[in-house]
């Protein structure tokens, strides 16, 4: 081969950078694997009959999904940060908060430690500034 060698991205450096953002858990393969059942559970709520069964007995319904105890507890508590720690992804989990009749804004706000009203006001004021929350290592 006489062609110029293709410039490749170093996967290890790429994945390491993904972990460098404060307050953010990028949905990497590692998280996707960890959260497989949690996310598939959430997907199941796209069917009305499953939503009904889930609402009737959350704990029993969750037991059908091979969840870790921590993931199950996080769902019961509607603790979205904990669900994301367990490998949940917000687009999957949206089926859960939609089932609860909640909006994206309420669910996203619940992960910030702010009250719903404070979060809504922050958005109206132009949102959260990226200043200081771009990089853990760089601190900028």
């Amino acid at each position, binding site marked *: 081969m006489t062609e110029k060698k293709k410039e490749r991205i170093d996967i290890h450096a790429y994945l390491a950078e993904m972990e460098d953002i404060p307050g953010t858990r990028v*949905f990497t393969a590692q998280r*996707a694997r960890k959260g497989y059942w949690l996310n598939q559970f959430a997907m199941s709520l*796209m069917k*009305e009959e499953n939503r009904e069964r889930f609402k009737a007995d959350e704990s029993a319904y969750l037991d059908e999904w091979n969840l870790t105890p921590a993931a199950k507890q996080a769902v019961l508590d509607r603790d979205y940060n904990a669900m994301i720690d367990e490998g949940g992804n917000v687009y999957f989990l*949206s089926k859960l908060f939609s089932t609860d009749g909640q909006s994206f*804004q309420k669910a996203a*706000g619940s992960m910030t430690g702010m009250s719903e009203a404070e979060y809504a006001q922050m958005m109206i004021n*132009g949102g*959260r500034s*990226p200043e200081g929350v771009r990089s853990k290592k760089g601190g900028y």
Partner: protein
Amino acid sequence: MARVTTGITSSHIPALGAAMQTGKSRDDYWGPVFKGYDPIKEWIAKPENTPDVIVLVYNDHASAFDMNIIPTFAIGCGERFKPADEGWGPRPVPDVIGHPDLAWHIAQSLILDDFDMCIFNQMDVDHGCTVPLSMMFGEPDEWPCKVIPFPVNVVTYPPPSGARCFALGDSIKAAVESFPEDLNVHVWGTGGMSHQLQGPRAGLINKDFDLKFIDMLINDPETLSKMPHIEYLREAGSEGIELVMWLIMRGALGDKVKDLYNFYHIPASNTALGALILQPEETAGEALDPRVVHSGHSLEAAE
């Protein structure tokens, strides 16, 4: 010959659909957003501007595709696509009617052009696909044109690079131009702009990044396409990565474009919103008046 006459970008957030359905689209909060879209709605309703077919680039938000299958680039080649039930029942909007002849033509052309596409026939389309249609066409009994759904994975990492998306757009353009029927084709890029929906950093908005992104998308997409994922994540939030899809639209318009309309607003729920009408410079129509509309927080005074 079919031609890509226009590129449009739009937000696709579910809250926009909800605002329409619940009659809130003219209230204090949503009014400026829908006002910003009014000129696009008027423009696209003119017969000479209404597309025959839209290649609608969006990301499936874990609706048609779960963890079982994660296609990087997919194309819907079926006759029709139903609105997905995302947990609150399907959006009450018409089915999306496909254009299987053109879709299969594009799919085959892309594969021959080294883009190894995933082909779908049966697929429900979520808010990513149907909200932009609602924003452009309102609440008709049926959509005024055919739509080829073109989902891109931006959920599970890694999504495709900006450069790959930009090159894909160019291949879509070539594919459309080799379709013998005389069709007015739009390519829409949806999603964005800066937003983060997860974790303690949720609510991130970066106006400077967004406005620069729009400017570069119009004037220097080649350089923009080289921006690495990490920069999207740091600057535009974890869900801001959706913006790579805009580069597919831009790649389908050729070297130089004219921006007919340029709307930016903060906030729409958790997001900053950008909606553009772009046309290839050689065949561009008249710009709208006003051409640039900025609204929302700290933006009233813009141009």
